[in-house]
């Protein structure tokens, strides 16, 4: 990469004024090891033909550990030779024992296809004759039989394993009888609901492997997250060796955190990330720098790519107009492969992508990575930043902040990127709903004998399934006793399978345009709601919950709709109650009942309320895990709370709840929408003011419990966001602007000051 670009940027005063941190991450020397002495000469030969004559230290260590039969998790940042880390011990094992087999699991289908092409390269070159087969939803049935019987390495994904392979294991008898290695790539993506399912899928996989007498070694690869070892152990429920020293060399990297200038300082609004990112990306591309821009939504990807291409229409670089492509889910596989190829061979100068390209798809090295907004987690940020930089060249990663509270918090704390380990991933495999679903699948696959375990004792759960009539206990065994095929109805990507399909019926058409989970549907696509989809406006004609359909029609009105949700929370069981950080913190099971009874019509831009409408929908119930913060009068914080003027109390507690929900993703690997928040001035169960933060997936995925652990850090962050914000009375970057529904406060009171002072008092009492 040209130094010239960096010099130009440094000379640009307007740009430099907005840079909150410019950090040079020095180059790192590689650490190497010789090939292990026992490595099959066929592999040595193939590798040296590709120019590989030694291993990175982490590859060497992985090889040794796996050879000793230990499970490992390797932390593999971009460009650290991940594929080889697991291929080497697996291929060695398969060459030594012509019967043994391997299973490679990738979290997405696109990835597994990419993987096969990378593997085929090795295979073809070495002609070592190990057959690799992809087995996923796209595999034609004509190929499936040979994949099952002859594939030495099967490449698949958890969804296929769950609904296609495990329920049909007798067809895979040869495979399971000799399964020696299981590779789980991108293990960090198995968190929350997906991760909770994954642990259960692995329980099922091990159960089947045991039935056929095999006991595979697991090799996991993870991006840099806070707890890779712990996460792998949660998923495998076995001991795992953590290999996190990276022996791959890296070039020098410039990390720039850029906070766009204010457009409206009073309201805390800054220049948008779409415009800023395309403007800066153009500088790089015009300077001949290969650039990737990461945007947070599919719509933004299209917008930014379009702006850039329009601006480049008459710009020639070495006699050619540079090519910039958009890349996101929803494209045809062939289109994606074409873009990936273009990036690898250099015919594409730039790409604008969602986080789809954050995962390990091979696109070669780029020189600059621009993040249009904080990607949601530090772990993701490092993955995206890592897309720029080949092993030896100089590279730049530029993060452009949005006006949102997390982005602004990060801008205030650039050290986050440099000193702090990224977020930890959480999951809860014993989430009752998820566990019950997988026990059904497991019984379908093989009967349970009395006393059999499934991540723990399961007798009471099986008895519950028997009382539902889907399992039968007889002769000391539990059998599947239902006509259905249970995994068909269970999606690993969500806690409940009942999604509502959105159908566009404009002018008699009948076109499916989207999907939404049922609880969200009740709040967003009720009758007469305005629904926005890819920049188009629709009005909901009929939400048919029973048949899982929502019929919409194109519309043109000047307002949008917002449901007024009344949430009622009941504490079902307190598991932990402790006084800490100046409050009483309760962790337990809660029942969340939400009811939407009316909605507001709000004018676009001015957000003025132009009317109300009724909603007639049954209440939604969810049994989940919650972290409850009680401001008990006996505690210091409780006393501070009682000193807040009465008329402001409700707003204070509500705004703090939202703020905590907004900053929580900095500490927990989750999306802000994974958390629900509710407040009570006087909770009937506790009798005191309380704030409820809860997992928005039925049964919980470990978030509420993790939130309790990180409470003081979250509180610190929340307090700081408010204190540091430059606004006067609250803005979207901190506690949110004043809303029309808020109770009017006397002129002498400033909402923001009250909240700031209360948070400071709370923090100091911790």
């Amino acid at each position, binding site marked *: 990469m040209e130094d010239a670009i960096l010099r130009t940027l440094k000379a640009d005063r307007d740009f430099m004024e907005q840079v909150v941190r410019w950090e040079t991450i020095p180059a790192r020397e590689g650490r190497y090891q010789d090939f292990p002495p026992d490595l099959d000469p066929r592999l040595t030969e193939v590798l040296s033909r590709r120019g590989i004559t030694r291993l990175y230290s982490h590859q060497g260590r992985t090889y040794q550990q796996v050879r000793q039969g230990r499970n490992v998790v390797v932390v593999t940042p971009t460009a650290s030779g991940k594929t080889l880390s697991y291929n080497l011990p697996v291929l060695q094992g398969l060459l030594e024992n012509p019967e043994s087999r391997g299973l490679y699991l990738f979290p997405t289908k696109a990835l597994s296809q990419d993987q096969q092409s990378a593997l085929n390269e090795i295979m073809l070159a070495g002609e070592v004759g190990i057959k690799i087969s992809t087995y996923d939803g796209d595999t034609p049935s004509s190929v499936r039989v040979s994949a099952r019987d002859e594939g030495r390495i099967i490449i698949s994904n958890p969804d296929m394993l769950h609904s296609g392979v495990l329920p049909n294991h*007798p067809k895979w008898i040869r495979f399971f009888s000799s399964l020696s290695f299981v590779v789980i790539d991108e293990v960090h993506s198995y968190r929350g609901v997906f991760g909770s399912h994954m642990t259960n899928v692995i329980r099922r996989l091990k159960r089947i492997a045991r039935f056929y007498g095999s006991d595979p070694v697991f090799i996991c690869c993870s991006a840099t997250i806070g707890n890779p070892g712990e996460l792998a152990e949660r998923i495998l429920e076995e001991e795992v060796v953590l290999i996190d020293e990276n022996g791959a060399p890296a070039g020098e990297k410039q990390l720039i955190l850029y906070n766009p200038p204010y457009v409206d300082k009073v309201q805390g609004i800054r220049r948008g990330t779409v415009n800023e990112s395309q403007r800066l990306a153009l500088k790089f591309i015009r300077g001949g720098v290969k650039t990737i821009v990461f945007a947070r939504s599919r719509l933004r990807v299209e917008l930014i790519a379009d702006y850039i291409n329009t601006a480049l229409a008459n710009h020639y670089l070495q006699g050619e107009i540079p090519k910039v492509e958009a890349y996101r889910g929803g494209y045809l596989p062939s289109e994606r492969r074409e873009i990936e190829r273009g990036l690898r061979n250099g015919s594409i100068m730039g790409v604008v992508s969602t986080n789809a390209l954050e995962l390990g798809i091979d696109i070669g090295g780029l020189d600059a990575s621009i993040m249009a907004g904080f990607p949601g987690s530090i772990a993701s940020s490092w993955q995206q930043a890592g897309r720029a930089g080949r092993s030896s060249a100089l590279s730049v990663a530029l993060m452009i902040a949005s006006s949102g509270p997390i982005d602004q918090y990060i801008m205030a704390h650039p050290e986050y990127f440099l000193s702090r380990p990224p977020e930890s991933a959480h999951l809860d495999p014993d989430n009752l709903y998820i566990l019950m679903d997988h026990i059904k699948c497991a019984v379908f696959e093989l009967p349970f004998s009395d006393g059999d375990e499934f991540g723990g004792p399961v007798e009471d759960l099986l008895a519950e399934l028997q009382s539902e009539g889907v399992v*039968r206990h007889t002769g000391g065994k539990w059998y599947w006793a239902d006509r*259905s095929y249970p995994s068909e109805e269970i999606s690993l990507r969500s806690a409940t399978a009942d999604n509502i399909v959105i159908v566009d019926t404009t002018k008699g058409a009948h076109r499916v345009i989207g999907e939404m989970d049922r609880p969200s549907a009740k709040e967003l696509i009720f009758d007469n709601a305005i629904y926005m989809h890819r920049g188009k406006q629709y009005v909901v004609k009929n939400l048919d919950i029973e048949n899982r359909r929502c019929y919409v029609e194109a519309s043109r009105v000047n307002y949008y709709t917002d449901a007024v949700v009344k949430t009622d929370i009941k504490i079902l069981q307190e598991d932990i109650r402790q006084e800490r950080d100046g409050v009483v913190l309760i962790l337990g099971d809660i029942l969340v009942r939400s009811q939407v009874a009316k909605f507001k019509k709000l004018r676009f831009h001015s957000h003025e309320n132009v009317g109300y409408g009724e909603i007639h929908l049954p209440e939604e119930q969810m049994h989940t895990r919650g972290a409850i913060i009680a401001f008990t009068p006996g505690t210091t914080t409780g006393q501070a709370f009682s000193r807040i003027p009465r008329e402001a109390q409700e707003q204070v507690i509500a705004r703090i709840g939202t703020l905590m929900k907004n900053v929580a993703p900095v500490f927990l690997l989750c999306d802000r929408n994974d958390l629900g928040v509710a407040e009570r001035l006087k909770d009937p169960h506790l009798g005191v003011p309380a704030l409820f933060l809860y997992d928005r997936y039925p049964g919980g995925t470990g978030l509420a419990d993790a939130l309790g652990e990180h409470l003081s850090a979250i509180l610190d962050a929340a307090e700081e966001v408010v204190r540091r914000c430059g606004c006067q009375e609250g803005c979207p970057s901190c506690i949110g602007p004043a809303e029309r529904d808020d109770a009017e406060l006397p002129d002498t009171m400033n909402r923001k000051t009250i909240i700031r002072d209360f948070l400071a008092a709370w923090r100091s009492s911790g």
Partner: protein
Amino acid sequence: MPRTGLSSRLKQLRTIREHAVPQKYNEAEAPQVLCIPGFSKIGDYTYYRREHFGGLSPPRNLSGLLLSAQQDPGELLFFDLETSGLSSGAGTLAFLAGFGCYRENGFLLEQFFLSDYPGEAEFLERIRRRLEPAPFLVSYNGKSFDASLLKTRAVLQGINFNFSRHLDLLYISRRLWRDALGSCSLGNIERNILHLKRDGDLPGRDVPERWFSFLRSSDPGLLGDIFRHHRQDILSLEMLWKSLEELLLNPNRRGAADPRALGLHLLSRGDYRGEEFLRMAWEKGDFRAGRLLALHLKRKGDNDEALSLWLRMAAWDDPGVYEELAKHYEHREGRCDEALHWARLGMNAVAGDRGVRSELRIKEFHRRISRLERKLQR
């Protein structure tokens, strides 16, 4: 999270689910002795019955178009299963197996019944002993469903199943009657082709639930409907086979059968009577039949007739027909200008299409056009 709180969480889960009224279940420690009318107990959990139908006999002559004409009908074993679910997969098991064969101047029907899960191994062993020695199996959808289900369950019980040759009547039935019937379930074939009426029959889809009810209640009274339904399935299977043999012997009495499918089946077995059925279908406007007929004529060497057929079909703007015309003019008549004309039309017809097959075709046309252009320039 510790698993300790699970039971109490379960209770709460149950209370918030309205329908969760725990059912009482029957738990047999030792196999129960059941009295199932008409059946005799032949294992701990296995029951058996047989029934002989005098007068039911195989057709005198076989068409030779389904099975070899020399096939001894006495070697055929008709078979069908009732299962606990309609999907395949490890958790679906068979609990009733029925067999039919020609014996003692009639038709012998046998049923094996499994009264509970623990008896599955002995039940499967009985089935294996009945199936394996049979030289030829006849079923309806047995290849992809019944046989693979038995194999799957046998693996779980450590039993090895080897199947004989197998004639599955589903495939030919579907080809012949799909256009006329839509669904080619055995029930639909019975009603519309065999003109059978089942009175008070338990629908097949309700069979699994009925068996589960029996397991919970141990009431053999619930089983009669299942046995009757299943017995009729075997009898219908035998009838369907005879009716297909007859159709292929006398294809002119084809009834509702699709002439294209019939013609194609006959031709594929080398029976030239198929030609007239393809022609009949084509004259009724069946374009695919026309294409098959032209292909047959070309193979037979009737090039003129094939050509006139393709020319008539050119109006359909079908790339395949254009390709045949281009081939004909280039290779048979050596008229490259005419061939180029058809090849270009073919290229136009396929140009907008996607998919691997169309891509191959586009490449093929591309090559052909360049070759023809080169030839014409010379």
